[in-house]
Protein backbone atom coordinates (compact mmCIF):
# COMPACT_ATOMS: atom_id res chain seq x y z
CA UNK A 1 0.00 0.00 0.00
CA UNK A 2 1.24 3.46 -0.69
CA UNK A 3 2.18 5.60 -3.60
CA UNK A 4 4.86 5.14 -6.15
CA UNK A 5 6.13 7.59 -8.68
CA UNK A 6 9.16 8.45 -10.68
CA UNK A 7 9.88 12.11 -11.09
CA UNK A 8 11.13 12.70 -14.59
CA UNK A 9 13.22 15.73 -14.05
CA UNK A 10 16.81 16.67 -13.76
CA UNK A 11 17.33 14.30 -10.92
CA UNK A 12 15.13 11.27 -11.19
CA UNK A 13 13.91 9.95 -7.93
CA UNK A 14 11.25 7.37 -7.18
CA UNK A 15 9.53 8.11 -3.93
CA UNK A 16 7.10 5.95 -2.06
CA UNK A 17 4.93 6.39 0.95
CA UNK A 18 4.97 2.79 2.19
CA UNK A 19 2.18 3.09 4.66
CA UNK A 20 -0.11 5.81 5.52
CA UNK A 21 -0.16 6.67 9.20
CA UNK A 22 0.53 3.80 11.49
CA UNK A 23 1.84 3.54 14.97
CA UNK A 24 5.20 1.83 15.05
CA UNK A 25 7.79 0.96 17.64
CA UNK A 26 8.26 4.65 18.12
CA UNK A 27 5.14 4.96 20.20
CA UNK A 28 6.93 7.37 22.47
CA UNK A 29 7.38 9.78 19.62
CA UNK A 30 3.75 9.74 18.53
CA UNK A 31 2.22 13.20 18.74
CA UNK A 32 -1.22 13.31 20.32
CA UNK A 33 -2.85 15.67 17.89
CA UNK A 34 -0.92 15.39 14.64
CA UNK A 35 0.76 12.90 12.40
CA UNK A 36 4.52 12.58 12.45
CA UNK A 37 6.13 13.03 9.05
CA UNK A 38 9.33 11.09 8.55
CA UNK A 39 11.42 11.63 5.43
CA UNK A 40 14.46 9.67 4.39
CA UNK A 41 16.69 10.56 1.54
CA UNK A 42 19.18 8.29 -0.12
CA UNK A 43 21.24 8.60 -3.23
CA UNK A 44 22.22 5.74 -5.49
CA UNK A 45 25.90 5.12 -6.06
CA UNK A 46 25.48 5.54 -9.81
CA UNK A 47 23.61 8.83 -9.57
CA UNK A 48 26.50 11.24 -10.09
CA UNK A 49 29.24 11.37 -12.70
CA UNK A 50 31.64 9.40 -10.57
CA UNK A 51 30.45 6.28 -8.84
CA UNK A 52 30.54 7.06 -5.16
CA UNK A 53 29.41 4.99 -2.25
CA UNK A 54 27.17 6.93 0.06
CA UNK A 55 26.58 5.52 3.51
CA UNK A 56 23.08 5.87 4.92
CA UNK A 57 22.81 8.46 7.61
CA UNK A 58 25.61 10.70 6.43
CA UNK A 59 25.27 14.42 6.86
CA UNK A 60 23.88 15.30 3.47
CA UNK A 61 21.19 12.62 3.65
CA UNK A 62 20.13 13.73 7.09
CA UNK A 63 19.98 17.37 6.11
CA UNK A 64 18.01 16.64 2.97
CA UNK A 65 15.65 14.45 4.97
CA UNK A 66 15.10 17.26 7.42
CA UNK A 67 14.39 19.76 4.66
CA UNK A 68 11.93 17.40 3.03
CA UNK A 69 10.25 16.87 6.36
CA UNK A 70 9.82 20.59 6.92
CA UNK A 71 8.44 21.00 3.44
CA UNK A 72 5.89 18.24 3.76
CA UNK A 73 4.83 19.09 7.27
CA UNK A 74 3.74 22.39 5.81
CA UNK A 75 1.79 20.74 3.02
CA UNK A 76 0.24 17.61 4.50
CA UNK A 77 -2.84 18.05 6.66
CA UNK A 78 -1.35 16.31 9.66
CA UNK A 79 -4.22 17.24 11.98
CA UNK A 80 -6.37 14.60 10.36
CA UNK A 81 -4.24 11.69 11.52
CA UNK A 82 -3.30 12.02 15.18
CA UNK A 83 -0.88 9.58 16.79
CA UNK A 84 0.20 8.25 13.42
CA UNK A 85 3.24 8.35 11.23
CA UNK A 86 3.68 9.07 7.55
CA UNK A 87 6.91 7.80 6.01
CA UNK A 88 8.34 9.18 2.81
CA UNK A 89 11.37 7.51 1.29
CA UNK A 90 13.09 9.15 -1.62
CA UNK A 91 15.89 7.72 -3.65
CA UNK A 92 17.80 9.65 -6.28
CA UNK A 93 18.68 7.67 -9.37
CA UNK A 94 20.27 10.33 -11.48
CA UNK A 95 21.55 13.63 -10.16
CA UNK A 96 22.46 16.56 -12.34
CA UNK A 97 21.76 19.43 -9.98
CA UNK A 98 18.46 20.32 -8.40
CA UNK A 99 18.20 17.16 -6.29
CA UNK A 100 16.11 18.80 -3.57
CA UNK A 101 13.62 20.06 -6.11
CA UNK A 102 13.33 16.70 -7.83
CA UNK A 103 12.84 14.95 -4.51
CA UNK A 104 10.06 17.30 -3.53
CA UNK A 105 8.26 16.90 -6.84
CA UNK A 106 8.53 13.13 -6.81
CA UNK A 107 7.45 12.92 -3.18
CA UNK A 108 4.41 15.09 -3.91
CA UNK A 109 3.24 12.61 -6.52
CA UNK A 110 3.84 9.71 -4.17
CA UNK A 111 1.95 11.29 -1.30
CA UNK A 112 -0.91 12.10 -3.66
CA UNK A 113 -1.00 8.57 -4.97
CA UNK A 114 -1.16 7.19 -1.45
CA UNK A 115 -4.25 9.24 -0.74
CA UNK A 116 -2.74 11.30 2.09
CA UNK A 117 -4.62 14.61 2.30
CA UNK A 118 -2.52 17.61 1.31
CA UNK A 119 -3.22 21.31 1.02
CA UNK A 120 -1.98 21.45 -2.53
CA UNK A 121 0.77 20.13 -4.78
CA UNK A 122 4.26 21.05 -3.66
CA UNK A 123 6.37 22.10 -6.60
CA UNK A 124 10.00 23.01 -6.23
CA UNK A 125 12.75 24.47 -8.29
CA UNK A 126 16.24 25.79 -7.78
CA UNK A 127 17.51 29.13 -9.03
CA UNK A 128 20.77 31.02 -9.06
CA UNK A 129 22.41 34.18 -10.10
CA UNK A 130 25.24 34.11 -12.63
CA UNK A 131 26.61 37.09 -14.60
CA UNK A 132 23.80 39.38 -13.46
CA UNK A 133 21.19 36.98 -14.79
CA UNK A 134 18.76 34.98 -12.73
CA UNK A 135 18.83 31.33 -13.80
CA UNK A 136 16.25 28.72 -12.96
CA UNK A 137 16.82 24.99 -12.54
CA UNK A 138 20.56 24.86 -12.15
CA UNK A 139 22.50 21.94 -13.49
CA UNK A 140 25.34 20.32 -11.62
CA UNK A 141 27.97 22.34 -13.45
CA UNK A 142 26.17 25.59 -12.71
CA UNK A 143 25.83 24.66 -9.06
CA UNK A 144 29.46 23.76 -8.77
CA UNK A 145 30.47 27.15 -10.15
CA UNK A 146 29.93 28.53 -6.67
CA UNK A 147 27.36 31.26 -7.19
CA UNK A 148 24.43 31.87 -4.88
CA UNK A 149 21.73 29.19 -5.06
CA UNK A 150 18.15 29.34 -3.98
CA UNK A 151 15.79 26.42 -3.46
CA UNK A 152 12.10 27.20 -3.46
CA UNK A 153 9.17 24.93 -2.69
CA UNK A 154 5.83 26.42 -3.57
CA UNK A 155 2.15 25.62 -3.06
CA UNK A 156 0.98 26.87 -6.46
CA UNK A 157 -2.73 27.46 -5.91
CA UNK A 158 -2.29 29.85 -3.04
CA UNK A 159 1.21 31.01 -3.87
CA UNK A 160 2.39 30.14 -0.38
CA UNK A 161 5.99 29.16 0.13
CA UNK A 162 6.62 25.84 1.86
CA UNK A 163 10.37 26.20 2.03
CA UNK A 164 12.86 28.78 0.88
CA UNK A 165 16.51 28.14 1.34
CA UNK A 166 19.61 29.86 0.12
CA UNK A 167 23.32 29.53 0.61
CA UNK A 168 26.14 31.85 -0.39
CA UNK A 169 25.59 35.60 -0.39
CA UNK A 170 23.28 37.48 -2.66
CA UNK A 171 22.64 41.20 -2.78
CA UNK A 172 19.10 41.96 -1.74
CA UNK A 173 18.45 43.89 -4.93
CA UNK A 174 18.77 40.70 -6.88
CA UNK A 175 16.66 38.60 -4.56
CA UNK A 176 13.43 39.65 -6.21
CA UNK A 177 14.41 38.51 -9.71
CA UNK A 178 15.90 35.21 -8.57
CA UNK A 179 12.82 34.42 -6.51
CA UNK A 180 10.64 35.31 -9.46
CA UNK A 181 12.57 32.97 -11.76
CA UNK A 182 12.29 30.10 -9.30
CA UNK A 183 8.58 30.71 -8.78
CA UNK A 184 7.89 30.74 -12.48
CA UNK A 185 9.75 27.48 -13.02
CA UNK A 186 7.93 25.89 -10.10
CA UNK A 187 4.61 26.84 -11.60
CA UNK A 188 5.66 25.25 -14.88
CA UNK A 189 6.43 22.07 -13.01
CA UNK A 190 3.01 22.31 -11.43
CA UNK A 191 1.36 22.49 -14.85
CA UNK A 192 3.13 19.33 -15.84
CA UNK A 193 2.35 17.42 -12.64
CA UNK A 194 -1.23 18.62 -12.72
CA UNK A 195 -1.75 17.33 -16.22
CA UNK A 196 -0.26 13.93 -15.41
CA UNK A 197 -2.30 13.50 -12.24
CA UNK A 198 -5.55 14.49 -13.89
CA UNK A 199 -4.93 12.03 -16.69
CA UNK A 200 -4.24 9.29 -14.19
CA UNK A 201 -7.33 10.06 -12.13
CA UNK A 202 -9.45 10.14 -15.24
CA UNK A 203 -8.16 6.78 -16.44
CA UNK A 204 -8.67 5.17 -13.08
CA UNK A 205 -12.18 6.48 -12.65
CA UNK A 206 -13.14 5.40 -16.15
CA UNK A 207 -11.97 1.89 -15.41
CA UNK A 208 -13.79 1.75 -12.13
CA UNK A 209 -17.02 2.53 -13.94
CA UNK A 210 -19.68 3.57 -11.50
Amino acid at each position, binding site marked *: *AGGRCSGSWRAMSPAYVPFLPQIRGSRARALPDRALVNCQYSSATFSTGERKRRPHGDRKSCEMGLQLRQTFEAAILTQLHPRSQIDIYVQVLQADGGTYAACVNAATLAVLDA*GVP*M*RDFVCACSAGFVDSTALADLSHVEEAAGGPQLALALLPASGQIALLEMDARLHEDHLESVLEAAARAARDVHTLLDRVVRQ*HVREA*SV*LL*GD
Partner: protein
Amino acid sequence: MAMEMRLPVARKPLSESVGRDTKKHLVVPGDTITTDTGFMRGHGTYMGEEKLIASVAGSVERVNKLICVKALKTRYNGEVGDIVVGRITEVQQKRWKVETNSRLDSVLLLSSMNLPGGELRRRSAEDELAMRGFLQEVDLISGVLVQVSPSLVKRQKTHFHDLPCGASVILGNNGFIWIYPTPEHKEEDAGGFTANLEPVSLADREVISRLRNCIVLLVTQRVMLYDTSILYCYEASLPHQIKDLLKPEIMEEVVMETRQRLLEQEG
Protein backbone atom coordinates in the same frame (compact mmCIF):
# COMPACT_ATOMS: atom_id res chain seq x y z
CA MET B 1 17.28 -23.51 -20.05
CA ALA B 2 15.38 -20.78 -21.85
CA MET B 3 14.31 -17.75 -19.87
CA GLU B 4 11.95 -14.97 -20.72
CA MET B 5 12.88 -11.37 -20.11
CA ARG B 6 10.72 -8.34 -20.40
CA LEU B 7 11.79 -4.71 -20.57
CA PRO B 8 9.70 -1.84 -19.28
CA VAL B 9 8.03 0.28 -21.90
CA ALA B 10 6.01 3.50 -21.69
CA ARG B 11 2.43 2.74 -20.79
CA LYS B 12 -0.13 3.12 -23.55
CA PRO B 13 -2.84 5.63 -22.70
CA LEU B 14 -6.15 3.88 -22.18
CA SER B 15 -8.56 3.88 -25.07
CA GLU B 16 -11.54 6.01 -24.19
CA SER B 17 -13.93 3.40 -25.55
CA VAL B 18 -13.34 1.13 -22.59
CA GLY B 19 -15.64 2.74 -20.08
CA ARG B 20 -18.96 4.46 -20.19
CA ASP B 21 -19.01 8.18 -20.41
CA THR B 22 -19.00 9.58 -16.92
CA LYS B 23 -19.72 13.11 -15.95
CA LYS B 24 -17.77 13.08 -12.75
CA HIS B 25 -16.02 16.03 -11.32
CA LEU B 26 -12.40 15.05 -10.92
CA VAL B 27 -10.13 17.08 -8.70
CA VAL B 28 -6.55 17.22 -7.52
CA PRO B 29 -5.32 18.81 -4.30
CA GLY B 30 -5.53 22.56 -4.40
CA ASP B 31 -8.53 22.62 -6.72
CA THR B 32 -11.41 24.75 -5.62
CA ILE B 33 -14.53 22.67 -5.43
CA THR B 34 -16.98 25.44 -4.74
CA THR B 35 -17.13 28.91 -3.31
CA ASP B 36 -20.60 28.36 -1.91
CA THR B 37 -20.34 28.30 1.87
CA GLY B 38 -23.65 26.50 2.28
CA PHE B 39 -22.08 23.06 2.01
CA MET B 40 -20.77 20.90 4.80
CA ARG B 41 -17.29 19.62 4.20
CA GLY B 42 -16.62 15.90 4.25
CA HIS B 43 -13.52 13.77 3.83
CA GLY B 44 -10.95 14.91 1.35
CA THR B 45 -11.72 18.60 1.60
CA TYR B 46 -10.67 21.51 3.70
CA MET B 47 -11.72 25.07 4.11
CA GLY B 48 -9.36 27.79 2.97
CA GLU B 49 -10.09 31.46 2.47
CA GLU B 50 -13.86 31.15 2.04
CA LYS B 51 -13.47 28.37 -0.51
CA LEU B 52 -13.83 24.63 -0.27
CA ILE B 53 -10.60 23.07 -1.54
CA ALA B 54 -9.81 19.45 -2.32
CA SER B 55 -7.04 17.74 -0.40
CA VAL B 56 -6.79 14.43 -2.28
CA ALA B 57 -6.94 13.44 -5.93
CA GLY B 58 -10.20 11.78 -6.82
CA SER B 59 -13.83 12.36 -7.68
CA VAL B 60 -16.22 14.70 -5.94
CA GLU B 61 -19.26 13.14 -4.34
CA ARG B 62 -22.18 15.19 -3.23
CA VAL B 63 -24.93 14.01 -0.94
CA ASN B 64 -27.42 16.83 -0.38
CA LYS B 65 -25.40 19.38 1.52
CA LEU B 66 -22.33 17.24 2.14
CA ILE B 67 -19.41 17.38 -0.24
CA CYS B 68 -16.55 14.94 -0.04
CA VAL B 69 -13.79 13.80 -2.33
CA LYS B 70 -13.32 10.09 -2.72
CA ALA B 71 -9.64 9.37 -3.24
CA LEU B 72 -8.50 6.72 -5.67
CA LYS B 73 -6.55 4.77 -3.16
CA THR B 74 -7.07 4.98 0.57
CA ARG B 75 -6.51 2.96 3.66
CA TYR B 76 -9.49 1.03 4.82
CA ASN B 77 -11.94 2.86 7.07
CA GLY B 78 -14.10 0.36 8.90
CA GLU B 79 -17.86 0.49 9.07
CA VAL B 80 -20.31 -1.46 11.16
CA GLY B 81 -21.28 -4.70 9.48
CA ASP B 82 -18.24 -4.96 7.25
CA ILE B 83 -16.46 -8.25 6.81
CA VAL B 84 -12.73 -7.96 7.16
CA VAL B 85 -9.91 -10.40 6.83
CA GLY B 86 -6.86 -9.75 8.94
CA ARG B 87 -3.52 -11.16 9.88
CA ILE B 88 -2.54 -11.59 13.52
CA THR B 89 0.52 -9.58 14.44
CA GLU B 90 0.61 -9.64 18.23
CA VAL B 91 -0.80 -11.49 21.20
CA GLN B 92 -1.63 -9.29 24.18
CA GLN B 93 -3.33 -9.69 27.51
CA LYS B 94 -6.93 -10.14 26.54
CA ARG B 95 -6.79 -9.53 22.83
CA TRP B 96 -5.01 -10.03 19.54
CA LYS B 97 -3.63 -7.23 17.40
CA VAL B 98 -4.71 -7.73 13.82
CA GLU B 99 -3.34 -6.13 10.70
CA THR B 100 -6.15 -5.17 8.37
CA ASN B 101 -4.66 -2.73 5.87
CA SER B 102 -6.19 0.20 7.71
CA ARG B 103 -4.61 3.21 9.27
CA LEU B 104 -3.98 1.73 12.67
CA ASP B 105 -3.87 -1.86 13.82
CA SER B 106 -7.16 -3.48 14.65
CA VAL B 107 -7.95 -5.26 17.87
CA LEU B 108 -9.75 -8.54 18.34
CA LEU B 109 -10.94 -9.10 21.88
CA LEU B 110 -10.99 -12.51 23.48
CA SER B 111 -14.56 -11.95 24.59
CA SER B 112 -15.72 -11.56 21.03
CA MET B 113 -14.26 -14.80 19.76
CA ASN B 114 -16.35 -17.92 19.36
CA LEU B 115 -14.55 -20.47 21.45
CA PRO B 116 -14.85 -24.22 20.84
CA GLY B 117 -17.49 -25.77 22.99
CA GLY B 118 -20.29 -23.31 22.54
CA GLU B 119 -21.33 -19.77 22.97
CA LEU B 120 -22.20 -19.21 26.56
CA ARG B 121 -19.03 -19.88 28.45
CA ARG B 122 -17.55 -17.18 30.56
CA ARG B 123 -14.02 -16.37 29.52
CA SER B 124 -11.85 -17.63 32.29
CA ALA B 125 -8.22 -17.21 33.14
CA GLU B 126 -7.41 -20.49 31.41
CA ASP B 127 -8.82 -19.12 28.19
CA GLU B 128 -6.38 -16.26 28.37
CA LEU B 129 -3.46 -18.57 28.79
CA ALA B 130 -4.77 -20.70 25.97
CA MET B 131 -4.94 -17.74 23.62
CA ARG B 132 -1.71 -18.72 22.03
CA GLY B 133 -3.15 -22.13 21.40
CA PHE B 134 -5.83 -20.63 19.18
CA LEU B 135 -4.04 -17.99 17.26
CA GLN B 136 -0.38 -17.28 17.49
CA GLU B 137 1.85 -14.91 15.57
CA VAL B 138 2.63 -16.07 12.04
CA ASP B 139 0.04 -18.84 12.15
CA LEU B 140 -0.66 -20.44 8.80
CA ILE B 141 -3.94 -21.98 7.90
CA SER B 142 -4.24 -23.60 4.49
CA GLY B 143 -5.04 -21.03 1.86
CA VAL B 144 -3.76 -17.91 0.15
CA LEU B 145 -4.12 -14.28 1.16
CA VAL B 146 -4.23 -11.66 -1.56
CA GLN B 147 -3.87 -8.00 -0.66
CA VAL B 148 -5.59 -5.50 -2.87
CA SER B 149 -6.76 -1.94 -2.56
CA PRO B 150 -9.96 -1.64 -0.48
CA SER B 151 -11.62 0.54 -3.09
CA LEU B 152 -11.84 -2.39 -5.46
CA VAL B 153 -13.98 -4.65 -3.32
CA LYS B 154 -17.64 -4.21 -4.14
CA ARG B 155 -20.06 -3.95 -1.27
CA GLN B 156 -22.46 -6.86 -1.39
CA LYS B 157 -24.89 -8.67 0.81
CA THR B 158 -22.58 -11.53 1.53
CA HIS B 159 -18.84 -11.80 1.24
CA PHE B 160 -18.36 -15.49 1.75
CA HIS B 161 -18.54 -17.26 -1.57
CA ASP B 162 -18.21 -20.90 -2.48
CA LEU B 163 -17.15 -20.93 -6.08
CA PRO B 164 -18.20 -23.92 -8.20
CA CYS B 165 -14.61 -24.48 -9.29
CA GLY B 166 -13.82 -26.00 -5.94
CA ALA B 167 -12.46 -23.21 -3.80
CA SER B 168 -13.99 -20.70 -1.43
CA VAL B 169 -13.32 -17.03 -1.28
CA ILE B 170 -13.80 -14.49 1.47
CA LEU B 171 -13.73 -10.92 0.14
CA GLY B 172 -12.82 -8.69 3.02
CA ASN B 173 -13.94 -5.07 2.74
CA ASN B 174 -10.48 -4.03 3.79
CA GLY B 175 -8.92 -5.40 0.66
CA PHE B 176 -7.66 -8.68 2.07
CA ILE B 177 -8.97 -11.65 0.18
CA TRP B 178 -8.74 -15.14 1.53
CA ILE B 179 -8.82 -18.08 -0.87
CA TYR B 180 -9.08 -21.54 0.62
CA PRO B 181 -10.24 -25.01 -0.37
CA THR B 182 -13.94 -25.60 0.24
CA PRO B 183 -14.32 -27.68 3.36
CA GLU B 184 -15.76 -31.11 2.65
CA HIS B 185 -18.68 -30.91 5.03
CA LYS B 186 -20.26 -27.98 6.72
CA GLU B 187 -20.37 -28.46 10.45
CA GLU B 188 -23.49 -27.08 11.94
CA ASP B 189 -22.50 -27.32 15.58
CA ALA B 190 -22.24 -24.32 17.85
CA GLY B 191 -20.02 -22.44 15.42
CA GLY B 192 -16.88 -23.22 17.30
CA PHE B 193 -13.47 -22.38 16.06
CA THR B 194 -11.53 -25.28 14.66
CA ALA B 195 -8.22 -25.30 12.93
CA ASN B 196 -8.04 -27.30 9.75
CA LEU B 197 -4.54 -28.56 9.19
CA GLU B 198 -4.80 -31.25 6.53
CA PRO B 199 -2.54 -30.98 3.50
CA VAL B 200 -4.25 -29.63 0.40
CA SER B 201 -4.49 -31.75 -2.76
CA LEU B 202 -2.71 -30.72 -5.97
CA ALA B 203 -5.92 -30.09 -7.89
CA ASP B 204 -7.17 -27.80 -5.17
CA ARG B 205 -3.88 -26.01 -5.08
CA GLU B 206 -4.00 -25.38 -8.80
CA VAL B 207 -7.47 -23.96 -8.54
CA ILE B 208 -6.38 -21.69 -5.73
CA SER B 209 -3.32 -20.37 -7.57
CA ARG B 210 -5.34 -19.78 -10.71
CA LEU B 211 -7.88 -17.85 -8.67
CA ARG B 212 -5.16 -15.83 -7.07
CA ASN B 213 -3.68 -14.89 -10.42
CA CYS B 214 -7.13 -13.98 -11.68
CA ILE B 215 -7.64 -11.64 -8.78
CA VAL B 216 -4.27 -10.00 -9.29
CA LEU B 217 -5.14 -9.61 -12.95
CA LEU B 218 -8.44 -7.94 -12.20
CA VAL B 219 -6.74 -5.63 -9.76
CA THR B 220 -4.12 -4.43 -12.23
CA GLN B 221 -6.87 -3.63 -14.70
CA ARG B 222 -8.88 -2.02 -11.92
CA VAL B 223 -12.01 -4.09 -12.23
CA MET B 224 -14.29 -4.26 -9.20
CA LEU B 225 -14.03 -7.52 -7.31
CA TYR B 226 -17.10 -9.56 -6.56
CA ASP B 227 -18.06 -13.17 -6.95
CA THR B 228 -19.38 -12.90 -10.52
CA SER B 229 -16.39 -11.00 -11.85
CA ILE B 230 -13.96 -13.42 -10.26
CA LEU B 231 -15.87 -16.39 -11.63
CA TYR B 232 -16.02 -15.04 -15.17
CA CYS B 233 -12.36 -14.21 -15.05
CA TYR B 234 -11.57 -17.71 -13.86
CA GLU B 235 -13.49 -19.26 -16.72
CA ALA B 236 -11.94 -16.90 -19.25
CA SER B 237 -8.51 -17.84 -18.00
CA LEU B 238 -8.91 -21.61 -18.31
CA PRO B 239 -7.37 -21.89 -21.79
CA HIS B 240 -4.16 -20.28 -20.55
CA GLN B 241 -1.53 -21.69 -18.28
CA ILE B 242 -1.56 -20.41 -14.74
CA LYS B 243 1.83 -18.77 -14.92
CA ASP B 244 1.01 -17.07 -18.21
CA LEU B 245 -1.83 -15.18 -16.63
CA LEU B 246 0.40 -12.42 -15.39
CA LYS B 247 1.75 -11.46 -18.80
CA PRO B 248 0.39 -8.14 -20.07
CA GLU B 249 -1.09 -9.32 -23.36
CA ILE B 250 -2.82 -12.29 -21.85
CA MET B 251 -4.04 -10.12 -19.00
CA GLU B 252 -5.70 -7.71 -21.39
CA GLU B 253 -7.31 -10.50 -23.34
CA VAL B 254 -8.78 -12.18 -20.31
CA VAL B 255 -10.03 -8.91 -18.84
CA MET B 256 -11.66 -7.90 -22.10
CA GLU B 257 -13.55 -11.14 -22.15
CA THR B 258 -14.55 -10.79 -18.52
CA ARG B 259 -15.77 -7.24 -19.03
CA GLN B 260 -17.81 -8.28 -22.01
CA ARG B 261 -19.55 -11.04 -20.14
CA LEU B 262 -20.27 -8.72 -17.25
CA LEU B 263 -21.80 -6.14 -19.57
CA GLU B 264 -23.92 -8.79 -21.25
CA GLN B 265 -25.12 -10.00 -17.94
CA GLU B 266 -26.14 -6.53 -16.82
CA GLY B 267 -27.86 -5.18 -19.87
